[in-house]
């Protein structure tokens, strides 16, 4: 860009160019949805087959895979932070949305441990769905909103699903709410 004298039409072009160059990079969000989506999906499916195989303490797969996902997530956040240099309104709202997500998630996990996992799973799906809907609305990305709605509906349906099949419902919910929209986000132009 040249920086000499310029006329009023050019002034408008400069504003437009800078605003366009600052458009929110939706693609950057995809990696987080895919990381958590595939990890939760894998944990649910592996847990399901471990239950069928009557393996003791099959639930261990959850802390193992979620712990691994969290470490990878921290690396990703740190890398993004280093490469960053700007923060938009959407960045800030998105950041607090996902920070706030951990509150209800923790309550649901503790409810599962101390009350009943059968009652906790539908809430997981509702929380995932709710976060996807809000995030999709912020990014103006319809597949994420739709995926979140499907996840919430599956959460309601799960109340009536017996025993270990709840795990398959959870896998389905995360596939609809995070994985499909995550891949779609990865393919968007800007």
């Amino acid at each position, binding site marked *: 860009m040249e920086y000499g004298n310029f006329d009023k039409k050019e002034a408008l072009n400069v504003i437009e160019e800078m605003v366009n160059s600052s458009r929110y990079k939706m693609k950057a969000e995809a990696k987080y949805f895919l990381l958590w989506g595939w990890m939760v999906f894998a944990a649910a499916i592996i847990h399901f087959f471990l239950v069928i195989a009557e393996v003791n303490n099959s639930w261990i797969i959850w802390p193992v895979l979620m712990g691994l996902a969290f470490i990878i997530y921290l690396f990703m956040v740190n890398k993004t932070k280093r490469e960053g240099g700007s923060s*938009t309104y959407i960045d800030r709202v998105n950041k607090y949305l996902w920070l706030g997500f951990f509150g209800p998630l923790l309550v649901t996990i503790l409810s599962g441990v101390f009350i009943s996992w059968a009652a906790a799973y539908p809430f997981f799906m509702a929380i995932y769905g709710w976060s996807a809907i809000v995030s999709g609305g912020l990014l103006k990305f319809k597949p994420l909103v739709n995926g979140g709605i499907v996840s919430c509906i599956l959460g309601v349906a799960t109340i009536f699903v017996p025993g270990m099949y709840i795990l398959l419902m959870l896998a389905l919910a995360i596939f609809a709410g995070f994985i499909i929209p995550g891949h779609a986000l990865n393919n968007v132009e800007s």
Partner: protein
Amino acid sequence: MKELDPILHSRLRLAIMSLLITHDEVTFPFVVEKTEASRGNVSVQITNLEEAGYLDVTKSFEDKKPKTTLTITKKGETAMEAYTKALKEYLNL
């Protein structure tokens, strides 16, 4: 017709302010990258805009490296609003 603000009616200063109006905050390297101007030129124009009260400059350290962060002020927002309004009038938009 209202005169265009001479502080903003400069390509680089306007580019910097346009970045700030769309962000909560930006770092100095980010501005250099987006405007494709030299570091020295960007630095001078940031000082001019700071002296006009259009932006705030915060210097800090991150990972033991100095970090310069810019944020737009209320006065800067008002000036940009007035500038774009006047520009539209001039261009009959």
